[in-house]
């Protein structure tokens, strides 16, 4: 059952005058109001917690109610503040939906960026050295496998990779591509 502004205000005034019974009646009447308020605005959060926090605030800060002003405006100002404060405090622990997807996408960007760089660098090398580096360092073949695939000697692979890497290092350190 909803209590009207006038009834709430009368209870509040009486509570401010020291009437504990009316104060309790006021807090009890606020529970459905606040529950509705929070359910409409933040259906996912812990509504009982918010309602209780707000009741405590209404009790401890009741001195800030100005008897000449509307009660519900005061009440909902507190409720709104408590809701924002609640979110702010919980922000460090909010589970993020779709976090894995975000991470995967971010990883993809990094990886593709790195691949672009490597491709650009390898293009500057003689074709054979580039192919050998790609085979052993990027595709992950062993020296023997690479030698077999390219039909050249293992030592040829090693020498090509070694020279190519040396040249790449010089390029990167020299800053030119």
């Amino acid at each position: 059952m909803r209590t009207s502004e006038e009834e709430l205000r009368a209870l509040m005034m009486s509570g401010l005058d020291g009437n504990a019974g009316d104060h309790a009646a006021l807090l009890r009447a606020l529970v459905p109001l606040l529950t509705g308020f929070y359910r409409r605005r933040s259906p996912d959060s812990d509504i009982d917690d918010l309602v209780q926090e707000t009741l405590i605030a209404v009790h401890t800060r009741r001195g800030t109610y100005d008897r000449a002003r509307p009660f519900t405006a005061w009440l909902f100002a507190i409720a709104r503040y408590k809701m924002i404060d609640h979110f702010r405090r919980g922000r460090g622990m909010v589970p993020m939906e779709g976090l894995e997807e975000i991470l995967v996408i971010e990883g993809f960007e990094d990886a593709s960026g790195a691949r672009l760089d490597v491709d650009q660098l390898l293009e500057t090398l003689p074709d054979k050295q580039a192919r050998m580096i790609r085979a052993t360092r990027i595709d992950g073949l062993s020296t023997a496998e690479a030698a077999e695939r390219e039909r050249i000697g293992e030592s040829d692979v090693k020498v090509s990779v070694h020279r190519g890497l040396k040249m790449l290092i010089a390029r990167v350190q020299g800053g030119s591509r």
Partner: protein
Amino acid sequence: MNTEQLIAELSRDVPRVPPGAIGRRLAIGLALGLAVSGILVVFGLGVRPDLGTAMHGFSFWMKWSYTISLSLVAIGATATLARPDAGRARWLWLTAIPVALLALVGVGELIRTPQTEWLKMWLGHSWTVCPWIVLALSMPIFVGLLWSFRTLAPTRLRAAGAVAGLAAGAFAASVYCLHCPEVSAIFVLTWYSLGIVLAASVGALVGPRLMRW
């Protein structure tokens, strides 16, 4: 704890709250802070020796009217922002009136003074320390107001912090008038105001952190 238990617990202690509780609470915090700042001025900096004669002169009252009127507007705005349902503190614009009046006095001074004296008049003897002293003297008052706010309910914390800082700065400047012998309006307009604005900035900076409830 379920809600019914909580309500029973809270309703056990329902003291009477007389009207005007916000004002009283702020007044106590303000008075405590003012007492500390006053002691610092009287026993630390020292009251200006010619205070008795100065109080018969124009410039002392010019300074005091400026700082005290700023103080009153700022503390009024502070009381407004201590309520959760406070709207915008629109009448904070009233602070423009003392500023404008003091600026007028300043223009009058400049017209009467030869141009070669302007810089000396503007910097006075103490422009390097004046803003910092005002800021330092505002801190006890600001702390007093923060204490007041512990049972109040501001919902716009940065604004509440700023006006509380503004009030603290303006009251601190009023106390500092007991020591400071500077006489020119443009000095007060610049260096006193700078100290007051610094205090307000500190308030705006720490308000969201220290006024949470």
